[in-house]
């Protein structure tokens, strides 16, 4: 049985703002095991970034508030930890890579130094020379040519893809057990994107790191994830393995996401399935299912009561009234069904 690295229980995070209290994360729960990749998918405002920042307690505390729940890393709840204790964890046990490598690196500091910083801080090396050696090794591992020369470069001297590799090197320097990747490829060209994803998978295999991969791109999910959590309006609405989600999606929002991806296999003249409207205001979250107003399969109950998380299988859960035994059986929309068939044929 694989070791459980991370367990999040009923996490709630609020933000105090001028307009009121925003409930950004409303009871999120999930688990992560050693060596596996969990993808968190959702549109902007779904709470995925807030969740990932919360895992390292990087949410600025005013205006952010940890309003409830636990984050258990290796069996220890990190929410009550002091800032000093968290500093031991960050970069060391848990590390993070960001979306935009241009702004994530300090423009006036050489990239070599930005790597050795981590090594020296967390005492992974015993001398500055050893740190430099290790940093050059890391640069090599992430695929940067001429690493000894590049050690002295400044960020603006590297291309976008190279910079992101440096960011990955920094994140992996201290051999963390958990890597949080917040949309690491969104800002990159598609070809570079593929390279970076390959790199990450390779490195993960070598070090058995667990990865949480935040993205809004289902194509990337199919490529890297073992399990998937679909988030909407601050909650996880569907949760399962990659096969569960792509072959047997249960939540209408997941259908919407799948249906809005371009489908190269079935060329019909049909329009892409678009979900009209936008996510709800989280200052005053609706009392029922948050997705109901945009859901063409919404039922009366969806506007009255929030659905519980229904179990579909041991690995697969979805938070929709459609899974209630008394609910009408909704067939998966045609557009989605076609895509599922396509995936199965391709042997995704």
């Amino acid at each position: 049985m694989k070791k459980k690295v991370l367990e999040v229980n009923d996490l709630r995070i609020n933000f105090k703002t001028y307009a009121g209290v925003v409930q950004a994360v409303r009871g999120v729960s999930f688990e992560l095991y050693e060596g596996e990749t969990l993808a968190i998918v959702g549109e902007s405002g779904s709470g995925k970034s807030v969740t990932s920042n919360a895992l390292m307690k990087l949410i600025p505390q005013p205006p952010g508030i940890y309003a409830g729940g636990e984050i258990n890393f290796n069996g220890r709840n990190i929410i009550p930890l002091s800032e000093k204790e968290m500093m031991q964890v960050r970069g060391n046990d848990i590390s993070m890579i960001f979306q935009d490598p241009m702004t994530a690196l300090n423009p006036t500091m050489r990239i070599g130094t930005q790597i050795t910083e981590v090594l020296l801080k967390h005492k992974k090396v015993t001398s500055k020379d050893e740190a430099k050696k290790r940093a050059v090794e890391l640069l090599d591992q992430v695929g940067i040519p001429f690493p000894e020369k590049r050690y002295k470069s400044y960020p603006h001297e590297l291309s976008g893809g190279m910079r992101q590799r440096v960011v990955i090197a920094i994140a992996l320097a201290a051999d963390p057990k958990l890597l949080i990747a917040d949309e690491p490829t969104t800002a990159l060209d598609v070809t570079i994107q593929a390279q970076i994803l390959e790199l990450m998978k390779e490195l993960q295999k070598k070090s058995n790191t667990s990865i949480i991969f935040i993205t809004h791109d289902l194509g990337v999910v199919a490529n890297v994830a073992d399990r998937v959590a679909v988030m909407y309006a601050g909650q996880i609405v569907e949760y399962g393995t990659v096969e569960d989600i792509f072959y047997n999606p249960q939540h209408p929002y997941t259908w919407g996401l799948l249906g809005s991806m371009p489908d190269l296999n079935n060329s019909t003249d049909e329009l892409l399935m678009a979900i009209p409207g936008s996510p709800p205001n989280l200052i005053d979250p609706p009392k029922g299912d948050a997705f109901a107003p945009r859901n063409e399969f919404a039922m009366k109950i969806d506007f009255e009561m929030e659905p519980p998380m229904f179990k579909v299988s041991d690995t697969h859960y979805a938070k929709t009234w459609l899974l209630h035994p008394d609910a009408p059986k909704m067939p998966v929309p045609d557009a989605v069904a076609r895509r599922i068939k396509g995936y199965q044929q391709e042997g995704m």
Partner: protein
Amino acid sequence: MLNFIIKRLLYIVLAMYLIITATFFLMQLAPGSPFTSERELPPAIEEQLNAKYGLDNPWYIQYKDYLVDTMTFDFGESMKYKGRSTNDIIAESFPVSLALGLQAMVLAIGLGVLLGVVSALYHNRFGDYAATIFAILGISVPSFILAGLLQYYLAFEAGWFPVSGWKGFAYTILPSLAIAVTHAGFIAKLTRSSMLEQNNSEYVKLARAKGLGKWTIVFKHSLRNALLPVVTYLGPLFAGVITGSFVIEQIFAVPGLGRHFVTSITNRDYTVIMGTTVFYSLILLLAVLIVDILYSVIDPRIKLKGAKK
């Protein structure tokens, strides 16, 4: 880099030409002549004086003469103090002003950056309020008023400092302080907002994600990036220190160029006015050039292009 410097020097020459010309014509327009404040001169003598200074020539001849003289750095003789050449006056008094100015700049930058960093680190807490109020007070009280108060209360009444003169280090403290305080205030505000901006940047977030502590982040990461805008203020700082010197030197009886400049204005001593104006302008233009070069040295991202912008 060399390209850049050359282009800028050309630009400076052009600007100087315009300044010299403008100054010349302004002086022409000025009412009165340097001799009117004296008692009535017999017309013959006045004519002689005018001829000596070329004041009776048509304006374009005066202009040509003036340009030629300026090119050779000959700023002529003071009209008021016969026998004293403007160049001598400048050569004698500028070093004093320079010393005063540099001291004021060091004070302004040191004090300003310190206050700015403190207020950014204790953002929205007591340290921030105290430092910000200090900075705003510094900006609000005009330097000459501050000078007068410092002189009266700290030197005259309390006797901690000499009242006026320029005979040793102790004499430099109050004058440079008076000049520096206002600029320290500006720099403090600039540093503060720049530091706060850095706090919201992605690389600081990454630094936190690495597990680095607050102070490490401030001194090793934010500070260097935050000081970049402050470097751009160095130009105006230099200019401000020069103009500050005009009045401060008067109040503290410091024998600097500023004091001479002001006196020459009151005396309508045109040669000195023009000479000093040209001199100051040149210094300022060169100072801005130096600041720009400095900026490119400090910020590795800047590659100075051949064109100015």
